[in-house]
């Protein structure tokens, strides 16, 4: 088992909570893990990414090799395309569709979606809306995690346990909202790939 994942977004969107949950599960399963993050300047509204690698064999590089990622998981649509050089030919692009516009030349949404549709394996998900339905827009990241669930090589129940472990300290209500968000993401992908 080996999964290479690029998490993408804009500084401040909090992609690292996704990494934390996957990391938690991976480590519980005694998998090897490496996760490279961006700290520093780009966190001020710049583009940020995290390279997340899990495997049942030791991992050497902290970086996912170019052309080696199984999944690009992006919380922002334009950012999902920035990392195509890292994606395997048959890899999946899974992206939230709500744009984060903090530049003046942000492209039109149809152009972004058009580019995305050129790829056989893509999922575009209105994660913010689904998160709001689950209880809070802030669970958008967790909807995205749910949307990627079937490609992670991790059982869904294990991801649920991961949510319970990571959010447990914040109380049952937060855990429930996030579990709902996780399932909403999963259901969306199930339908999209059915």
């Amino acid at each position, binding site marked *: 088992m080996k999964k290479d994942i690029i998490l993408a977004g*804009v*500084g401040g969107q909090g992609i*690292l*909570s996704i990494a*934390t949950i996957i*990391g*938690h599960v991976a*480590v*519980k399963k005694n998998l*090897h*893990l*490496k*996760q*490279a*993050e*961006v*700290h*520093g*300047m*780009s*966190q*001020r*509204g*710049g*583009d940020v990414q995290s*390279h997340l690698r899990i495997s049942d064999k030791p*991992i*050497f*590089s*902290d*970086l996912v*090799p*170019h*052309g*080696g*990622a199984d999944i690009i998981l992006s919380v922002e649509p*334009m*950012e999902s*395309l*920035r990392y*195509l*050089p*890292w*994606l*395997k*030919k048959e*890899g999946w692009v899974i992206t939230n569709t709500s744009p984060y516009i*903090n*530049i003046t*030349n*942000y*492209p039109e949404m149809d*152009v*972004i979606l058009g*580019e995305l549709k050129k790829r056989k394996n893509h999922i575009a998900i209105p994660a913010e809306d689904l998160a709001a339905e689950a209880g809070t827009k802030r669970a958008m990241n967790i909807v995205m995690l749910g949307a990627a669930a079937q490609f992670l090589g991790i059982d869904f129940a294990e991801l649920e346990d991961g949510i319970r*472990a*990571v959010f447990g300290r914040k109380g049952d209500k937060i855990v429930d909202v996030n579990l709902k968000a996780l399932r909403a993401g999963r259901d969306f992908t199930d339908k999209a790939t059915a």
Partner: protein
Amino acid sequence: MEAKLSDKKQLLLGDEAIAQGAIDAGASGFYAYPGTPSTEILEYVQRSRVAQEKGIHSQWSANEKTAVEAGLGMSYAGKRTMACMKHVGLNVAADSFVNSGITGANGGYIIVSADDPSMHSSQNEQDSRFYGKFAFMPVLEPSSQQEAYDMCFYGFDFSEKYKIPVLMRITTRLAHSRSGVELKDPREPNSITLPEDARQFVLLPAISRRRYKKLLETQSKFIEESNNSPYNKYIEAGDKKRGIIACGLGYNYVMENYPDGCPHPILKICQYPLPDKLIKRMAEECEEILVVEEGMPLVEEQLRGFMNAPLTIRGRLDGTLSRDGELNPNMVRVALGMDSMMGDNVPDLVKSRPPAFCVGCGHIDFFKALNEAVKDKHGDGHVFSDIGCYTLAAQPPFESINSCVDMGASITMAKGAADAGLFPSIAVIGDSTFTHSGITGLLDCAIESTNIVVCILDNSTTAMTGGQNSHASGRVRDICLGLGINPEHIRECVPLPKNHEELVKIINEEVAYEGVSVVVPTRECVQTIGKKPKKQ
């Protein structure tokens, strides 16, 4: 959010592994000034309950020089200590660093310098290993989070065995990447023990000459340690057309490309000075050598020299690998002679997204006023700036600043330009940068009554690196008074949209004043306000 695996195995960033390693290896104090990618080392110690219980020193220092000196003092007193900084911080600390090679250490002393190849968050991509070589100090360059942890024990032991500080060189990729780390049983801190030679640390010429000779003589022992180090490994293999010297993270990128094992002999180097016997062995066995090292071609240059080497040497100098920038698996793959694995190109529609001021940041209001008072009236070219969030004012729509060189250079460059006759000459510096390296420059100005306006942007924190305490907080006015600035020309104000006219007026008035003026726009960073713990 942190995932804890067990008490003995934890998921740690490279920086955190170093902090935990030094705590477990018996450090009594950490000294540091924040700087990406090194900041998380001291931040981890500050959060560590064990460190608090043991009373381990973990306050920020004013700058890297004070940090390295304080560390040397703790080592003098016989205790284990670590100083941490980003690579350019080692320039600031260079005087104390290089001289600490000559004084030597007493208690184990590790100095961590975090390099930033590809300049993700830095002004340059200098390679700290050169400093190690320059100061004749052993250098450790971990290739994994686990090695980073283990090397703290090893480094302190080494430092105490040879009474020499040890430089640990890491890069962004290791600093900010997380992996599982097995912890060892913690070791007790040392008790106070003064150096055997009470004059060891007195660098009078007569003593320095003696100590320098001793340092040179010890080099052969360091080289022998490198030959036998657990971190330098010669890995035998059949295809000797090529041998590979892989340093630090470079080793990982090579191995990533050989999932079934490397067909060529590899010499993994994570401890310097270079292991001469291992290198000579590779030179005798192989037809050519490929050097894969993160940063500058330190090893490659040493192998090549000026004369023709008896065998082909490939690396960053002959173009086999890029001369600059961070390594990655694909670059190394191509250098190894395999096809690139590059996926699809980035579509043209993807636009760059540079970092920007946060919504509501006080720096925005200050630069709007500064532009109106200076750029609109006197033209572009009058504003010397410094390093911090406010450097983002170089970009549109502000385009307010004309320099950013090194911490503190705003005031001193503005001084030099004013001395040359530039009017107005304006310096813009953050509060933390001011106490790091601005005070001495302002003293120069005060002594000469230089005609400049120094704007000290006080947001009560070191914002760019994530909001560490600033030594300047609440002290800017007093410091300026102490330096001899005329109190009538220390002008505090609050950068808010509603105060725009007032800010412009203050700047105009101080530009008109002939002499040193200090303008202090004071408003807390919107990020740190947000992070303040809510009252229960």
